[in-house]
């Protein structure tokens, strides 16, 4: 099972629909400061259910909607779809692909979809935990966050292990 694609539209520095395809193995993302690399990391966290705007560097969740740039007006909604390839059947699911998507507009309206069907956050969380992707997202380490594990309290590290277990 592996991440197959991330599609961003109106999310942070991705005003137009952009699809990124991934294969098994090691993928490395490079580019100058501020070009949008960590915005991709944020998109995955966000699509998979991140509840805190601070975790994606915003102050309110609408901060993730493309705010405009030279020659481009702001967008009214952000949408991210993450597709997980399940052709090895490792997730507890009969689908060969699991698609999770999330949308948010400037009025704060939006929601989640699982394989295209509208659902609640709890459904997404459950599908992910069947696929061993915990809610605490211990498999995504954001920029500047790696040392947190060493600075965190024993109780927090226990949670990381419990969630994986």
């Amino acid at each position, binding site marked *: 099972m592996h991440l197959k694609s991330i599609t961003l539209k109106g999310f942070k520095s991705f005003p137009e629909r952009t699809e990124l395809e991934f294969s098994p193995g*090691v993928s490395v993302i490079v580019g100058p400061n501020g*070009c949008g690399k960590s915005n991709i990391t944020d998109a995955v966290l966000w699509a998979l259910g991140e509840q805190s705007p601070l975790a994606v560097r915003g102050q309110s969740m609408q901060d993730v909607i493309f705010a405009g740039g030279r020659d481009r007006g702001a967008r009214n909604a952000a949408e991210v779809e993450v597709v997980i390839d399940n052709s090895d059947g490792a997730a507890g699911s009969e689908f060969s692909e699991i698609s999770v998507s999330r949308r948010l507009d400037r009025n704060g309206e939006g929601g989640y979809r699982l394989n295209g069907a509208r659902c609640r956050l709890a459904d997404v969380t459950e599908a992910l935990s069947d696929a061993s992707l915990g809610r605490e997202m211990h498999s995504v380490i954001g920029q500047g966050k790696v040392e947190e594990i*060493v600075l965190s309290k024993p109780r927090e590290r226990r949670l990381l292990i419990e969630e994986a277990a």
Partner: protein
Amino acid sequence: IAAAFDETFEAAGESFSELIEHMFPGGSGRLRLVEEPRPARVLGGADAGGAAAAGADEPAAEADEEEDRDPAEVAGVEIEVTPAGKATRRLSLLSGGEKSLVALAFVFSVFLARPSPFYILDEVEAALDDANIDRFLQLVRRFSDRAQFVIVTHQKRTMDAADVLYGVSMKDGATKVVSRRLPREPRLAGAEPDRRA
């Protein structure tokens, strides 16, 4: 649930000690279950601390005997690491690079106990010197047959470890991504993935 935790914790603990020997040659480390230090204990009073209330009547000095407790009742996971030739056990005193190595060893030890299908690592090796970046990348290559790694970096050595490279650029506030599969002998440089399960 408690059984799953115990099993995972034990497997992670074994892997952690081995990974610390990899990250800190000549050094050692382990994971330890501990009871959380509590605010001032009220004798005979009810302890408000939930799971940490187990054993509320025991004096603080018994905290060292936590391995005898039922792990489901203990409050947390302590990390102990001693780099080669050093005596300090205080994690906070470790250097920036040393803390990153310890954190990565922890993440990989949980991975070995219960793999996630993919890991997204954003500049996790920023504090490492070249020799330690190589130690980190040896682990990435060793485990890349079991999990997919998506790594954001500014380090040339990390770029050299890629199967696929994604070049990101920005123009007028909009990001553009171009990807390129790199011709590589599978795992020619660095560890073979079948070594050391």
